[in-house]
């Protein structure tokens, strides 16, 4: 009887947690090879060849990768610095509430807010005009929908840096970094040595899985690049949805090729991250 109940649990898990993912992947794979789809008439490699030769995927992937990397690096670096310098102050009652507030803002609002601040008719453009730095809106630098993705990176940083500050504060307390630092100092370590040999290794080692996980989340981010991105290159999710929603039927299949490639990359990342034997305290 007990075995039966466990089997029902596993069956439900497979039904809700595995089947939809597998179905989505198989559907995208079949579509990408022309086996299914409105205008497709059998197996073909032309959509894959088209995507690979045009370089659309690689450009978009490289662009997304760089944006996610820069945003995560700045966020993690900034959060480590804040934890190191302001830990005691951030534990006080008022600040300990305030630092949670950014987590109540979703991506779509962050994108909208960034656009309101940095667009050519936005808040900073008005201030610049008032201060006499510019005389027309067009003179304001491109900070949103720009080639360097400044708006996107800024939004990502404001979205994830507060999370990492809270994470590092938590790890600092749980891993007793304070006590270990005092011990290192009593053994003659300098402030720099304590930071480099105690603080950084413990915090990074305990949270690297989450850091990589957030990098993957940013790689597939949709709302922020949809509002703040440019026409080309686009971030992966925006590119996939744009291609799949095209009226050009060939483009739909190419969109599914990109979707398959993206799914394969994140799946491999999941296998590398979560298959190893070691148990990680902050893995989820």
């Amino acid at each position, binding site marked *: 009887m007990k075995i039966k109940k466990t089997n029902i649990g596993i069956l439900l898990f497979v039904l809700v947690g595995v089947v939809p993912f597998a179905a989505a992947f198989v559907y995208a794979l079949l579509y990408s090879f022309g086996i299914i789809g409105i205008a497709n008439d059998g197996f073909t490699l032309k959509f894959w060849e088209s995507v690979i030769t045009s370089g659309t995927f690689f450009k978009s992937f490289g662009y997304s990768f760089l944006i996610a990397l820069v945003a995560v690096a700045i966020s993690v670096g900034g959060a480590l610095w804040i934890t190191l310098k302001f830990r005691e102050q951030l534990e006080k009652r008022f600040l300990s509430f305030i630092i949670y507030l950014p987590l109540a803002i979703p991506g779509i609002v962050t994108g909208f807010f960034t656009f309101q601040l940095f667009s050519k008719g936005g808040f900073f*453009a008005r201030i610049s005009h008032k201060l006499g730095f510019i005389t027309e809106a067009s003179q304001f630098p491109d900070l949103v929908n720009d080639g360097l993705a400044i708006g996107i990176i800024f939004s990502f940083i404001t979205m994830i840096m507060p999370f990492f500050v809270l994470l590092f504060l938590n790890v600092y307390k749980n891993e007793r970094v304070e006590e270990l630092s005092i011990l290192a100092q009593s053994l003659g370590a300098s402030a720099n040595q304590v930071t480099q040999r105690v603080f950084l290794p413990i915090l990074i080692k305990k949270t690297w899985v989450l850091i990589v996980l957030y990098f993957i989340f940013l790689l597939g981010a949709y709302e922020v690049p949809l509002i703040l991105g440019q026409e080309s290159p686009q971030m992966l999710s925006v590119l996939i949805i744009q291609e799949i929603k095209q009226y050009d039927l060939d483009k739909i299949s190419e969109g599914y090729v990109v979707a398959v490639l993206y799914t394969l990359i994140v799946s491999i990342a999941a296998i590398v991250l979560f298959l190893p034997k070691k148990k990680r305290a902050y893995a989820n």
Partner: protein
Amino acid sequence: MRINWKPFVLSLAVLLILFPFVYLVFLSLASEWRFPDVLPSYIGFKNWVTVFGSETGLLQSFFSSLLISLSVAIFSTTSGFLISKAVFYHPKKRTLTLLAYFPYILAPVVFAACLSFFFLKMGLFGNMTGVVVAQFIIAFPYALLFFSSFWNEKVKSYEDLVATLGGNKWQTYTKVLLPLAKGLLLICFFQTFLISWFEYGLTSIIGIGKVQTLTIKVFLFIKEANYYYGALSCCLLIFPPVVLLYFNKRYVFKKLV
């Protein structure tokens, strides 16, 4: 004399954190704010009055979002808790956990685009049920993984003890497991509520514009360049998480240990 710069930096940080909230409320009260005016020519409750008069359907969107998010949170927390027991007591739990991570880390909008064919065939395209089912599919792996640390040796020993003392399955759940997991269940409920509340891409694909949640409305207003109503929608979107934060910070922050 060495100047202590920390209070200045902290004050600046507090201002920067509060700025988006103040700015969005301010923008929602504004009207006819043209470049290069630093202040709008109108500040008042005109936009809010219009919204509460239901002219734009924002209130309806608010309640649709609330209904969808509550449904997703209830279904995913309940199923996540019950099914996670079978998964994390299973001998192959590492492989099963890995399988749960695949849908968890895939961008929901891409997932939805690849699933939309099946939703269409099942009659779940462009309606609220479809959106709830689609959001449930992405919230469920989160809920399942959330309870991974709960099912440990200690809890197993409690279950064995109840069985030894003659307790049945129902009593194990009501007298031991649910009271033990009460805190985690509450956090998981609010976290999955927020996953659904904040969701845009997946809802836009499966709802095809017919299911107008608050995030869909925000984007519609941005496209129409109606930034005042956009800001107002943002205020409605941010308000529930801030209330949750006020009651308990844990509800908004991810579980860490």
